[in-house]
């Protein structure tokens, strides 16, 4: 954070906000698990609209709480779902790939710059390109 563009009062506010985020980050893994569970339920029920909404929620929140890769992946999943919604409908194989990856991230606690998660994302991207989906 570059402090020179903020007043002293604003810097104090920023520190306060950062403390709130740091506290929330500690339990965000649990929140993320719940979102993934809801996402699975909506996909099982072929409710693409709800699945898109949950992906958007994860995409919006996860990065802020330190789960950058989960945020990226859910944003990517959201775009795939939106495309599927407009075109062919839900592809369960693609959904399973994304769900397995998100599940893996939470269970293995893969946050931020984790090398394992980066490898996982790249493998997934390559698989999707092979399938001509992405």
């Amino acid at each position, binding site marked *: 954070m570059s402090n020179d563009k903020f007043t002293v009062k604003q810097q104090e506010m920023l520190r306060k906000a950062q403390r709130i985020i740091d506290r929330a980050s500690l339990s965000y893994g649990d929140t993320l698990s719940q979102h993934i569970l809801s996402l699975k339920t909506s996909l099982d029920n072929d409710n693409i609209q709800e699945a898109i909404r949950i992906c958007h929620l994860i*995409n919006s929140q996860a990065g802020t709480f330190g789960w950058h890769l989960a945020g990226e992946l859910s944003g990517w999943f959201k775009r795939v779902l939106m495309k599927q919604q407009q075109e062919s409908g839900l592809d369960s194989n693609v959904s399973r790939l994304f769900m397995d990856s998100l599940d893996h991230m939470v269970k293995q606690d893969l946050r931020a710059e984790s090398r394992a998660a980066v490898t996982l994302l790249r493998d997934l991207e390559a698989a999707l390109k092979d399938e001509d989906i992405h």
Partner: protein
Amino acid sequence: MRSILEAFEVPQVQMTTEYNDAVRRLSNHKYDCIFVDNMMSEKNGLMLTKYIRRHQDKTLRKIPIILCTAFTGLQSIINARDAGVTEILAKPVSPDQIMAKMNVALFNPRSFIDAEVYSGPDRRRRIRDFGEQDDRRKSDIPLPAQKENDDDTALDGQAGAE
């Protein structure tokens, strides 16, 4: 977002996920700043932005609007700009980004353009001072040949010296 804004001592924060609810609240309350998400329920944040920018109430029309979005491609930015968004906040959001965008939108706003074809903050973020003539972009269209003793030559610094 609410927690961050409260940490910034924003006295009142109202949130809604429904477009129609947002429209209803806008007619009943006065707001200093509006954060819109690119993806609301049935209509997105840009639709709400367009609604506000075309509103007949001049005060409402000029409210600073900050768009929170994960779509930061060039076309998305152009769409947001043309809808009349004041600032764009890229996700994932962080407190310093929010503070910086609020600083610009609330305390250092661009002039507001209220024209028939566009209503919103001036879409030009910087006004270039061309300074030396050579800095200007060259036109592909040839200029018409200049007549001798044309009045325009008076613009030349040497003209008045004789």
